[in-house]
């Protein structure tokens, strides 16, 4: 009985791990690193993790999780609360709805799709922030962040793949 409930807790913790890992990465990305100019173009960790899990384990990154992760990122980073929540939610929805397309595709294709999603997300964020401030804001930091995020994605994807392999392999996939 006890062993059974422990297994249950263990399984639950493992299933929760994509969200917890994503939240932790967002927190780490918000720490000060004192590299000149980094603060302005700090890559969008939330977008990378949501994209990854939406492709490989969409069952563990539902819309509510993506939304909460966005809120968490907004609160830590200081961006308008709700901005990243909306963007991550839409990105999650877009990828999950195209899930059949991604099945069996090479990493190059996935990277290319991530680039597209990032550019659309950066554009959307720029429009919303312009709207909220009722003024035209310089879009270049958003663009730089997008390029930087696209460049870092393979590394993040590799890291998340290792974590997925370590934590989620023993878990029954048919949830």
């Amino acid at each position, binding site marked *: 009985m006890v062993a059974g409930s422990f297994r249950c807790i263990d399984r639950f913790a493992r299933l929760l791990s994509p969200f917890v890992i994503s939240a932790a990465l967002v927190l780490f990305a918000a720490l000060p690193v004192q590299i000149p100019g980094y603060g302005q173009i700090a890559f969008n960790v939330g977008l990378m993790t949501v994209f990854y899990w939406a492709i490989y384990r969409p069952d563990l990154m539902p819309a509510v999780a993506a939304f909460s992760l966005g809120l968490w990122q907004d*609160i830590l980073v200081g961006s308008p609360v709700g901005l990243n929540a909306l963007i991550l939610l839409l990105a999650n929805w877009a990828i999950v709805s195209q899930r059949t397309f991604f099945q069996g595709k090479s990493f190059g294709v996935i990277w290319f799709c991530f680039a597209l999603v990032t550019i659309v997300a950066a554009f959307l964020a720029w429009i919303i922030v312009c709207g909220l401030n009722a003024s035209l804001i*310089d879009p270049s930091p958003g663009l730089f962040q997008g390029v930087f995020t696209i460049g870092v994605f393979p590394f993040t994807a590799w890291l998340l793949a290792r974590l997925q392999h370590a934590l989620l392999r023993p878990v029954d996939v048919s949830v």
Partner: protein
Amino acid sequence: MPVRALVHRFALLFLILAAFAIMLLGKAETVVVERVRTGVVDVVAPVMDAASRPIATVTEGIDRIGNFFTVYEDNERLREQNARLLEWQNAALALAAENSTFRKMLNYIPEPGARFAAARVIGDSGGVFVRSVLVNAGTQAGVEKGDAVINGDGLVGRVAETGRQSGRVLLITDLNSRIPVVVEKTRIRAILAGDNSGQPKLAFLPPNARLEVGDRIVTSGHGGVFPAGLPVGRIASVSDDVMRIEAFADFDRLEYVRIVTSFPGETAGHIVPSTVRRPAR
């Protein structure tokens, strides 16, 4: 199954609307959004504080290695600077003596000094469209919303949100930062307005105000929210429509800051809605 799909679709729609609603509430500076925000940051502040320390140590180590290669040039430069500063020290001592004589003659009562709270920067990367940092001092340390934040070089920003043991500092480069300043030499007043670029601009200058590149800009103290005379920066470029300031503070390397918690002549200011001070509870 169709029912489940329907629920899914409505959930998505509901969350999209919720995101927009939260954004608008936040824009209207609603207390609820701010409370939630400061509450969450308060809880994770100790974690961020602890996690940011090793990073700071590594950066310091790298700096130290870098300094090793420039030690000769640095020494030369510092010697020269020291000689110059000694001259200034003599001048300052003479002026201080003269000043105290004048004060005695005028029966001048000195004002009490300002009070500060020291804080460490625990969160950076203010996002693409915001320029702000998190610090590990809040209401417990006497920090209030609107307080001026400085470091050894000059003005950094003002406190925009305070939790119990954390606070968010809006840098002077942020789009929403507006600070009353004055040109130190000519006493021309202006508002320093950030626009998310590295160099904030001077707004509301009187027509045909004469300004030169290199002029020092300090806070004017108008409105009583900031103390007067805090060094802000130098005029970096002058053109017909825009004047930009190179700030003294280096925003890329903020590690420790000082928050001016009280100063002589402080009043509850109402210059900009977001700098309104709420009475302490």
